[in-house]
C-alpha cells in the first residue's frame, strides 16, 4: 500500500518537475517566436543590411539602422568586463583565500547586498555622483559610454564575485595543500594552482556577469545620454539596444515598433552568441 502511494507520489513529483521545466523551455521558445514575428515587418520592409548593418537611426524619416546600438551594447559590456572581471575575481580570491574567515564572510555579505540594490537606485546614484565626476575630470558632458560602463561594473560585480568565490571554494583542498607542501608561496598557489583549477567556474561567473550587463536597462539609460550616434569614444553619449528600446517604445508604431522588436531580437542573438562562443573557448582551452 505504502509503496504504491510512494510510487504515485514519485510520478506526480516527476510530472510537476517536468511541467516546471517545460514552462521555462516553452516560455523561451515562445518569446523567441513572438519577437521574431514582431520584427518580421521591419526585416522585410527595411531589409537586413539597412536594419542590422546601418548606423543610421532616424525613425521619422524611415531610417532604422541599429548597428550603433548593437555596438553600444557590446562596447559598454566589454569595457565593463575588462574592469569587472579582474576586480570580481580579485575580490573572490581575497574572500576565499586571503581574508580571515570572518572578514571574508563580512565582505561577501556586503557584496551580495550590492546585488539586491535595484538598478534604478544605482542609476540615480551614478547620475548624481558619477556623471558630475566624469564631467569635472574630463570636461565632457559626463553622460556617455564611460558612465554606462562603470554602472555596469557595479551591476555585474556581485555576480562575478560570488560565483568566482564559489568556484574557488570548490577547488579540492588537497591541491592547495600539495602546492604548499611543495614550498609554493601563497601567491604562487593562488596564481598557479587555484585560479587555473577554478578557471571554468570563473569564466562562467564572468559570462553570467556579462548577461546582467547586456540586459541592464534602467541604470544605463540614466547615464548613457541616449544619443543615436555610433561612437567608440568613452566620453561621447550613445545608446545600447536596451536603452534605445525603452527610450522609443512609447512613441513607436508600425515599422518603427517592428524595428525596436528587431533590436530585441538582436539582443537575444547577441547574448546567445556570446554565451556559446565563450563556452566554446573555455572548452577548447580545457582540451588543449
Amino acid at each position, binding site marked *: 500500500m505504502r509503496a504504491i502511494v510512494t510510487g504515485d507520489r514519485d510520478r506526480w513529483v516527476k510530472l510537476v518537475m517536468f511541467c516546471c521545466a517545460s514552462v521555462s523551455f516553452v516560455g523561451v521558445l515562445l518569446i523567441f517566436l513572438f519577437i521574431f514575428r514582431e520584427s518580421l515587418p521591419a526585416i522585410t520592409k527595411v531589409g537586413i543590411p539597412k536594419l542590422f548593418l546601418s548606423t543610421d537611426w532616424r525613425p521619422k524619416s524611415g531610417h532604422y539602422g541599429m548597428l550603433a546600438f548593437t555596438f553600444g551594447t557590446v562596447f559598454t559590456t566589454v569595457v565593463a568586463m575588462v574592469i569587472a572581471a579582474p576586480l570580481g575575481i580579485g575580490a573572490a580570491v581575497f574572500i576565499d583565500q586571503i581574508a580571515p574567515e570572518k572578514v571574508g564572510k563580512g565582505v561577501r555579505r556586503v557584496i551580495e547586498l550590492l546585488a539586491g540594490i535595484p538598478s534604478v537606485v544605482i542609476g540615480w546614484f551614478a547620475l548624481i555622483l558619477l556623471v558630475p565626476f566624469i564631467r569635472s575630470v574630463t570636461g565632457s558632458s*559626463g553622460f556617455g559610454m564611460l558612465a554606462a560602463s562603470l554602472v555596469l561594473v557595479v551591476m555585474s560585480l556581485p555576480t562575478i564575485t560570488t560565483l568566482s568565490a564559489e568556484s574557488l571554494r570548490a577547488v579540492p583542498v588537497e591541491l592547495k595543500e600539495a602546492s604548499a607542501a611543495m614550498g609554493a608561496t601563497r601567491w604562487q598557489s593562488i596564481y598557479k594552482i587555484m585560479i587555473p583549477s577554478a578557471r571554468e567556474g570563473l569564466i562562467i561567473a564572468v559570462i553570467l556577469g556579462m548577461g546582467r550587463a547586456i540586459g541592464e536597462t534602467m541604470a544605463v539609460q540614466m547615464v548613457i545620454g541616449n544619443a543615436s550616434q555610433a561612437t567608440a569614444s568613452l566620453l561621447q553619449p550613445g545608446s545600447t539596444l536596451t536603452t534605445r528600446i525603452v527610450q522609443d517604445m*512609447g512613441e513607436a508604431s508600425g515599422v518603427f515598433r517592428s524595428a525596436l522588436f528587431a533590436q530585441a531580437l538582436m539582443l537575444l542573438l547577441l547574448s546567445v552568441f556570446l554565451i556559446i562562443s565563450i563556452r566554446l573557448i573555455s572548452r577548447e582551452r580545457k582540451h588543449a
Partner: protein
Amino acid sequence: MDSRPGKKRLIAAICIALAVAVVTLASGCGGQTQKQAARGRVKVSGSTTVLPIAQEAAAEYSDANPGVRVDVQGGGSSVGVTQLIQGIVDIGMSSRNLNPDEVGKGLINHDIAFDVIAIVVNPSMPITNLSDAQVKAIFLGKVKNWKAVGGPDKPIVVVIRDQASGTRDIFDKKALGATDTKVVESTGSAIQCSSNGVMREIVGSTPNAIGYISFGYVNQNLKAISFKGVAPEVKTAATGLYPIARFLRLYTKGEAKGVVKGYIDFMLSDKFQNDIVAREYVKIKDVNIK
C-alpha cells in the same frame, strides 16, 4: 467592499443616473450646478508638459467633487493620443498638433494653455542671443564649438528630447524648419532626455550644454536666451513675435461628456487659468494668434 451583486448593480444604476443628471444639468445650466452631483472617474495620459497643470487640476477638481477620481499619467504626447484612440484613457494630453495618421479618428481638441519653448543654456555660458541660422547650425551638429557663435572655446553639448516629445516636435518645426512632410532632426550626437525635468537637470548641471524647455520650467539653474533677438516671454509669444510656442491641448474622443467635460471646463475656468495656468503658461484667452 460590497461583494453582493445586487448592491453593486444598484450602485452602478445610481452612477449612471447621476451621470445622466450631470450631463443634463451641465448642458442646461452652463456647468455651475454640476459640482454637487459629479461622480465618476477620468483617466488622463500624455504630454509631460501638460502633466503638471493636469495634475493640479485633478487634485483641485476632485477636492471640489469628492465623488470624482482623476488619474493623470505622463508618457508623452504620442502616448496620450495613442491611448485615447485605443480607448484606454478619456483624455489625451498633447503639446503638438495631431500627426497625419492621428487625424480623422474623431478626436476633439480643447486648447487649455499656450506654451512658450525657451532655448536654454547653462547659466555659466555668456551667450544671450542666437540667430535662426546659429540655432539650426548648433542643433543640426554643423557647429560644434561655442566659439563659432561668439562664445568661449568650448565644445557644445546639445541636449534634446525623446521621439515621443511634443516639445521636440514643435522645436523641430518652429526652430529647425521641419514640416509635416519634411523631416529635420537634431544631430545624432545630441543627448536625449525624456522629460522637461531631466532637461532642466542636465542643462542646469552641464556647463557647455544647450537645450530647449517649456518656459514654465526655467529657473535659476537655467538661462533662457533670445531667439532671433526676441526674448522668450509670455508677451512676445502671445502676439506671435516669439515663434517657438504651441498650444497645450486636451483631446477627447468625441464630445466630452459628464465628469470628463466637468474636468476640462474646470481647467478652462477663470479661477484655474488665473491661479495655475498663468504661473507658467499663457492663459488661453490672452492668445491673439491662431
